[in-house]
Every structure is written in structure tokens, then in C-alpha cells.
């Protein structure tokens, strides 16, 4: 028999909203973006470094999978850090939006202050969730691509293509994940 959770329903909702856990939708978005950003550099390596995809399929496959893992990890960390900051900034705007929405509703139905506050809290969480996902994706992708291009086409430019790709992709994705673990208080 599975042990029951020690948290109440409200606490579980709070954990879901403010914890590090991701919803299925957020996970899908993150893995999709991680796949895209991990495969886009293959175009550069195949056309500039002349690494043919068929000949290097195994290396590219391993590099893409490892890169996706690290970048997804970075997405989650960045999103968690950004969500709290964004939620604080959007407080006024969201409450203005909710007040306007309530005022537009049918005048007979009065909305209590408690319900308004709950709506504001819920909406603020929703907006912060969406914006933090988008901004985390942008920041992580920009960091990863900048480090990768710097390593592959400046530092290791004259290396043989195979070690160039291996080192660049692993170091770029690793550093991106590492930078995401820093917390700015």
C-alpha cells in the first residue's frame, strides 16, 4: 500500500506552484527546445567543419543526447530562479488585470475580496510560470550557443573536426548547466 502524502491539498498546490517540479506541459516545452538547440549546431559542423552526418551519426547522437540533458537541467534551474523575481514584478499588473476583469463581469454577482486575492495569486503564478519558461529558454539557449560558437570556431578552430565537436558540445552544455546552478540573492 503506497504511503499517503503528509501534505494537505493546499500545501500540495503551493508546492506545485512554487516548487522546482515541472508540469507535463513545461517539461514538453523544455525537452522540445533542448532538442532544437542541440541539433541546430549540427548544421554548422556539417557545413563548415565538413563533418558528414552519416559518417558521424553516433557521435552526433551521443552529443545531442548529453547536450539535451544538461540544457534541460539548466532550463529547470533558470526557470525556478526567474519565476520568483517575475512574480514579484508582475503583482501590480496582474491585480489591475483581475480588477478590470471582475468589473466587467455581471454586476449582480459580487466577488469577495478573498476570491479576488486567490484569483490574483493564481493569475500571477500563471503569468510568472509562462514568462519564466520563455525567459529561461532564451537565456539558456543564448548562453549555450555563445559558448559553443566561441569554443568550436575560435578556440578549437584548427583542431580535427571530431574532437572539436566532442569537446565543444560537452563543455558548452556542461558550463551552461553549471552557470544555471548559481543563485543570485
Amino acid at each position, binding site marked *: 500500500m503506497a504511503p499517503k502524502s503528509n501534505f494537505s491539498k493546499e500545501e500540495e498546490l503551493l508546492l506545485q506552484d512554487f516548487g522546482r517540479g515541472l508540469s507535463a506541459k513545461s517539461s514538453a516545452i523544455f525537452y522540445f527546445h533542448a532538442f532544437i538547440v542541440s541539433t541546430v549546431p549540427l548544421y554548422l559542423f556539417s557545413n563548415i567543419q565538413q563533418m558528414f552526418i552519416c559518417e558521424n551519426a553516433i557521435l552526433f547522437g551521443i552529443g545531442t543526447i548529453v547536450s539535451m540533458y544538461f540544457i534541460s537541467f539548466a532550463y529547470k534551474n533558470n526557470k525556478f530562479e526567474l519565476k520568483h523575481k517575475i512574480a514579484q514584478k508582475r503583482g501590480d499588473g496582474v491585480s489591475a488585470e483581475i480588477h478590470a476583469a471582475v468589473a466587467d463581469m455581471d454586476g449582480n454577482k459580487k466577488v469577495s475580496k478573498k476570491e479576488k486575492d486567490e484569483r490574483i495569486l493564481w493569475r500571477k503564478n500563471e*503569468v510568472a510560470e509562462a514568462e519564466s519558461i520563455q525567459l529561461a529558454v532564451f537565456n539558456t539557449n543564448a548562453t549555450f550557443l555563445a559558448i559553443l560558437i566561441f569554443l568550436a570556431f575560435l578556440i578549437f578552430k*584548427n583542431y580535427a573536426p571530431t574532437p572539436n565537436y566532442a569537446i565543444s558540445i560537452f563543455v558548452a552544455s556542461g558550463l551552461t548547466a553549471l552557470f544555471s546552478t548559481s543563485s543570485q540573492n
Partner: protein
Amino acid sequence: MNLGCLIFYSSNMKCVLCLVALFAFFSNAVIADDTTAKLILIKEVLNDIITEGNDLSVQYSLFNIGDGPATDVELADSDFHESEFELVSGMTSVKWERIGANSNVSHVVVVKPLKASAFNSTSAVVQYVASEGAEPTFGFSDELGELSIISATEYKRLHASHVWEWFLFSVFCIPSLLLPYLLHFTSKSKYNALSAKKKH
């Protein structure tokens, strides 16, 4: 007495000097009739980078630094075998009837390397008749040593401009960079505007 000796020696010296001058004049006159040619052959590669499948230009320059014309001049270079090079223009064996004294000629051969590998370039040979009735004289050009022929793939990797590739890469990055930022920026602008409106 000293003065007398001095006068005697100076007149003797003058005679000796006159004899030396006459001898030099006549010896030059004798040598002026015996003119010979002397050819210097310089072989040089005009390309900075030698690539498989791209034209390779080799220039042969013949300088006649002798006093007389060189006749029946034949230049031959056996470096470019058919199995490794395709002849595009020029000839690897060339003849000139006459190269005058203090003049020069040049010839360019264009070949296309068929393989990417290290290539050992040896000397070209020139045969000519230095003076009338003389036996043929042979000369050799400088050796270029080992030349590196890089593959077309390596050439593209190192020397092509790749402008188009970078442009396409920036287009491919739009879904990963531009779209997420635009979505975030749109939402941020909307709520900043609502917040500013509320404050007023």
C-alpha cells in the same frame, strides 16, 4: 744619385704598365670573339595553397646571363605524372630556338592535382647549346621540395568564407532565441502597461 735612380725606376715602371695595358687589351680582344651562353632556370609555384581538384600553376623562368645566345633550348619537367595530375594548359616539354644574351623567357604550366597527398617536387631540366659547335649543356632548376596538396574538404573547412552558412544558422536560431524572447517581452510590456495605468 737617388734622384737618378728614381728617374730610372719610374721610366721602367711606365714601360711595364704600358706592356700590361697592351696585354689586357689584346686578351680582351681575343675573349670578345669567344661568346657563350649561360642559362639559369627558376621553377616556382604560383599558388599559395595547393588543393585537390583546383588549378596549380607552375612557372619556369629562363635567364641567359652569358655573353652569347643560347640555341636549341629544351625545357623538360617530369614531375607531373598523368596518374596524379591532369594537364590543363601549357606543356611540360618546351623548346625555344634561341634565347639571346641578357634576355629571359618564361613558361607557365597549369595542372590539376587528382589526389590529396604530400607531393615531392624535383628539378626541371634545361638542355641548350651554349656556343656554336659546342656540345649540349644541361642545367637544373631549383627543387621545390615536398609540397602539401590538401583535399577539397580540408580547403572548404579552412579557407572558404562560410557567409551563407552563418546566415542560415542565424535563421535556424530564430525559434530558439527570438521567439521565446518576443513572447516574454510581449507579456512583460502588457503587464508593465497595466501596472503604469493602475498607478495613474
